């Protein structure tokens, strides 16, 4: 979240789209209710289903899954044509005035630079025009036809209410009504927030979709302001922490992964340290070397010296263009390229798209270690045929699987201490409530024991690349089970010479004199102690920022980009809700997202970006600098805007024997998968209360479709996609409305996840149906908006 849960109570308009907080974040939803009670905020829901959030909303607009960019693009168009945007904010805090190079354009579904043979873009025409010193040229009047503002206006001119209606399936009137409510937050003294979740991230164009949301919020002047922002509701207690600490494509703190063409630390830093694009840009990523060297010092300690590039050579390098996202990883596994796999707190058989492919991939492994609280579908995958036969007849036979599976019992969340990083970016330290049962061990002990054993083998027997393990720092009091306090102190960072904890990332150096495991968490455990364990309830700003409650990354800042909450003189846009203001000598309010002693006119408000301002136009994403509506990979209609380039041209799609895609003539209905309040992912079907609250798998069908097919509520139905099928009772409802899309009636089918072939209550795995299609920037699978057929059994 750019803001945070408690801040939602400051909003005048709450747009819930691509999320369903009443069902999936009911506790956070209290702040939506508070905004409605205290500020008379309007709750606007746009969703394929009339869900439990819609049940308490002020406005509900139906839409077809996978068409959110068209809807939001329509709002951008609506705001621009009706002058509902916050003009002064746009001029001051965005790149609207930046002039783009000649040659940039968009035609028939492709941006300029498309290479048909390579299947990707040459992005050189997406850059700004620069002057002699390398700075971007700007036109503060916004009149230059090649400035971002004019290009954006032209790009979204196609997104009229009628076009939106034709793509999304709501009526033009319904769209305009919702757009007016949303744009009412464009007034300087109003703010609107967006709450989204997997309904936005699980598409083959998801990152662009969130970019569209950011553009809309920038136009309405809602970024950096209380009650504003673009707020991702994270789905697990610590999934934000998992993202922050890095996955395959990020090192901790969103440092980029080194690739094969970055042979030395200098190559790496040269590639990933941006240069400022405006004279007044602070360009904070200019400090990349300090973050990276301090991280390398944390990894390799005394083995990291200036001479050896601080041990940079020890970090594994990804191939120059290699992608190790979910889709590629399991595709490689299916092709037999992986020998072993550790599934640590993860249930890929249930979670991953295209279950038949997941099972096939795991069966190609020699060994798999599953670390879990209980036997999951993944741990029992070898027995899927027998356990799952009732739900799906064609899983792999156990006799054809040679994979050796080891199940290690792990402590559950209540049996561990450490910090959860919530959606608000708060690192909240918790204590273990009780010890793990039986042989179950805490995660760090399991990891440490594996690490130390592998290192011992390398020491004894040697190997291809022993150094990364042999030089790894492991100075914990109990090496077999490091305490998380020690790890947290290391993550915060310390001064090597004095051994004192650092106060924050401002103290990091690139000469090897500081150690820091994750620069954005620096400041969480200082000499003053563990700030994550704080529970102070003071609220000095009255905005619900609670600066003494736990610790928020970065620098205990509660609202990101808060400098943009003030105008050019440093005065808040809304005097009632000012996150930060300049009193002539210093900034008052939240921790400034700005140089603390710099005057308002000294630099741009978006200090992390080379532009110094926020990007309406962003050449960073692979499929275009402006978001464009692309259909899901499986779609009931060709893209009404450009039928020849229907879906995202850069979406990774796989073509193995189990990666089939369906067409509308065989699979005419749009399917969406989602979670229910009553369950947490694939866990609570093992729990008594969850099993009572939602016992049976079911399929939600629009009443009109059910009538057409002669299906009544409770009748057993079979849902098929090109990949597989599920069976369950029909829940026939008017809450999913038939839509009118490109001249034809489109029905949507709702399928809750949560069931599987192990647990107290069982049912089919919904991912039997979902396609192996992904977002090109983030690698998220398209779990929403794929094609199925429905029949009565």
């Amino acid at each position, binding site marked *: 979240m750019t803001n945070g849960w408690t801040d939602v109570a400051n909003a005048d308009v709450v747009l819930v789209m691509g999320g369903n907080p*009443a*069902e999936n974040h*009911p*506790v956070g*939803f*209290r702040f939506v*209710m*508070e905004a409605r*009670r205290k500020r008379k905020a309007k709750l606007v829901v746009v969703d394929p289903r*009339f869900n*439990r*959030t*819609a*049940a*308490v909303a002020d406005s*509900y607009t139906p839409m077809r899954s996978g068409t959110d960019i068209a809807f939001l693009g329509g709002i951008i168009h609506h705001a621009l044509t009706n002058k509902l945007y916050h003009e002064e904010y746009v001029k001051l805090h965005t790149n609207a005035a930046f002039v783009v190079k000649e040659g940039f354009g968009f035609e028939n579904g492709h941006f300029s630079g498309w290479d048909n043979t390579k299947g990707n873009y040459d992005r050189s025409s997406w850059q700004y025009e620069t002057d002699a010193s390398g700075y971007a040229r700007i036109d503060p009047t916004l009149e230059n036809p090649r400035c971002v503002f004019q290009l954006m206006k032209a790009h979204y001119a196609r997104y009229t209410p009628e076009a939106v209606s034709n793509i999304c399936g709501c009526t033009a009137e319904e769209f305009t009504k919702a757009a007016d409510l949303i744009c009412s937050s464009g007034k300087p003294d109003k703010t609107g927030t967006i709450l989204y979740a997997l309904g936005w991230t699980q598409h083959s164009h998801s990152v662009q979709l969130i970019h569209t949301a950011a553009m809309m919020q920038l136009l309405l002047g809602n970024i950096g302001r209380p009650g504003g922002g673009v707020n991702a509701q994270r789905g697990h207690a610590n999934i934000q922490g998992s993202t922050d600490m890095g996955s395959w494509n990020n090192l901790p703190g969103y440092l980029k992964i080194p690739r094969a063409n970055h042979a030395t630390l200098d190559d790496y830093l040269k590639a990933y340290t941006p240069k400022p694009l405006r004279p007044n840009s602070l360009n904070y990523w200019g400090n990349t070397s300090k973050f990276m060297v301090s991280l390398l010092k944390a990894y390799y300690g005394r083995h990291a010296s200036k001479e050896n590039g601080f041990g940079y050579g020890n970090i594994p390098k990804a191939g120059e263009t290699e992608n190790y996202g979910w889709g590629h990883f399991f595709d490689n596994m299916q092709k037999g390229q992986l020998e072993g796999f550790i599934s640590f707190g993860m249930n890929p058989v249930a979670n991953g798209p295209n279950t038949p492919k997941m099972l096939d991939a795991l069966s190609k492994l020699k060994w798999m270690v599953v670390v879990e609280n209980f036997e999951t579908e993944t741990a029992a995958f070898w027995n899927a045929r027998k356990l799952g036969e009732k739900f799906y007849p064609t899983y792999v036979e156990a006799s054809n699987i040679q994979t050796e599976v080891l199940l290690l019992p792990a402590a559950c969340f209540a049996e561990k201490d450490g910090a959860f990083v919530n959606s608000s970016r708060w690192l909240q330290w918790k204590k273990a409530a009780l010890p793990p049962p039986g042989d179950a061990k805490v995660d760090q002990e399991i990891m440490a024991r594996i690490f130390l054993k592998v290192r011992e083998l390398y020491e004894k027997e040697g190997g291809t690349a022993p150094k990364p393990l042999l030089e790894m720092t492991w100075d914990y009091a109990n090496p077999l089970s490091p305490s998380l306090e020690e790890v947290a102190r290391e993550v915060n960072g310390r001064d090597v010479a004095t051994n004192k904890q650092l106060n924050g990332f401002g103290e990091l150096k690139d000469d090897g004199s500081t150690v820091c495991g994750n620069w954005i968490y620096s400041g969480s455990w200082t000499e003053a102690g563990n700030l994550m364990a704080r529970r102070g309830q003071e609220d000095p700003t009255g905005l619900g920022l609670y600066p003494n409650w736990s610790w928020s990354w970065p620098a205990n800042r509660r609202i990101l980009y808060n400098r943009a909450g003030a105008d050019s003189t440093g005065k808040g846009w809304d005097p009632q809700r000012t996150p930060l203001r300049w009193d002539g000598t210093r900034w008052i309010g939240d921790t400034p997202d700005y140089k603390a002693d710099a005057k308002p006119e000294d630099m741009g408000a978006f200090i992390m970006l080379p532009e110094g301002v926020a990007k309406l136009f962003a050449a960073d994403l692979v499929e275009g600098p402006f978001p464009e509506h692309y259909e899901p990979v499986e779609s009931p209609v060709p893209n009404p805007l450009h039928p020849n380039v229907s879906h995202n041209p850069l979406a990774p799609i796989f073509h193995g024997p189990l990666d089939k895609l369906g067409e509308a003539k065989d699979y005419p209905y749009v399917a969406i998968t989602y979670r*229910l*309040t*009553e369950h947490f992912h694939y866990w609570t079907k093992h729990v*008594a*209360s969850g*099993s*009572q*609250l*939602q*016992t*049976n798998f*079911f399929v939600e069908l629009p009443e009109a479709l059910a009538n057409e097919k002669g299906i009544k*509520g*409770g009748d057993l139905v079979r849902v098929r996609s090109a990949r597989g099928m599920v069976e369950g*009772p*029909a*829940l*026939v*409802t*008017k*809450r999913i*409305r038939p839509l009118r899309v490109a001249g034809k009636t489109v029905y949507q089918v709702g399928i809750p996840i949560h069931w599987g072939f192990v647990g107290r*209550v069982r049912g089919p795995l919904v991912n039997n149906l979902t396609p192996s299609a992904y977002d090109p920037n983030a690698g998220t699978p398209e779990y929403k908006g794929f094609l199925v057929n429905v029949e009565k059994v």
Partner: protein
Amino acid sequence: MQTVAKLIDTTQCIGCKACEVACQEWNDQEFTLGTFNNSYQTMPDLAPNFWNLIKFNEAEQNGAQSWLMAKYQCMHCADAGCIKACPAPGAIIQRANGIVDFEHDACIGCGYCITGCPFDVPRLSSKTKKVYKCSLCSDRVAVGLEPACIKSCPTNCLSFGTRHDLKFLAEKRVSELKSDGFENAAIYDGPGVGGTNVLYVLKHGDKPEQYGLPKDPRIPWTVSLWKGPVKWLGNLVFFGGLFTALVHFLAIGPKEHKHED
């Protein structure tokens, strides 16, 4: 002692069922498996081990879709039909704070209270042969805590306090809804049973049945008769009989047995 009450603002209910779980956990009731009936509601009805149910009702208001969720449990009536119907002394009591509570040691399992309840709340257990329902967590309330359902509610849909305060809160909420254009918004407070200590705020107050609430709850006339005129008549017959016997005894003397041998 002031009368306590629970306020259910249905406009803020998101049907999360947290109150259902909290109720079962606090009262140590066993979880069972749900059923499927074309609804998100998996528990079809209240049960001896399930005293708090959220009913899900899909409806349309002037052509607009709505999905009404309302919590359903003992209403703790001021004039409680169950007490009226109960023949076992002390089995059902109304505490000084208004809570209608069952004392299971005294319950004889006759089930008359079920007939007496205008809201169809008490449930007879075939195992224990006793009747069960929500106690408004009288054990928690007695030590200054709010009932478990209130504690678990994430949205402030549920409030607990004195009936006087909550009535005020409910009236405020209804006037807000009216100013937002919901002219039929109303408080549901069971006038037919002298008011209930569970109050509802309904957006569509003219149609309480859409929320699964009876439009005009009344204690069945048979029960009123049983504890009213019939009881009086019964007493008359009983004591009248005794009196007649006494008069007969005094006037005529004891019955004499004739020996016929």
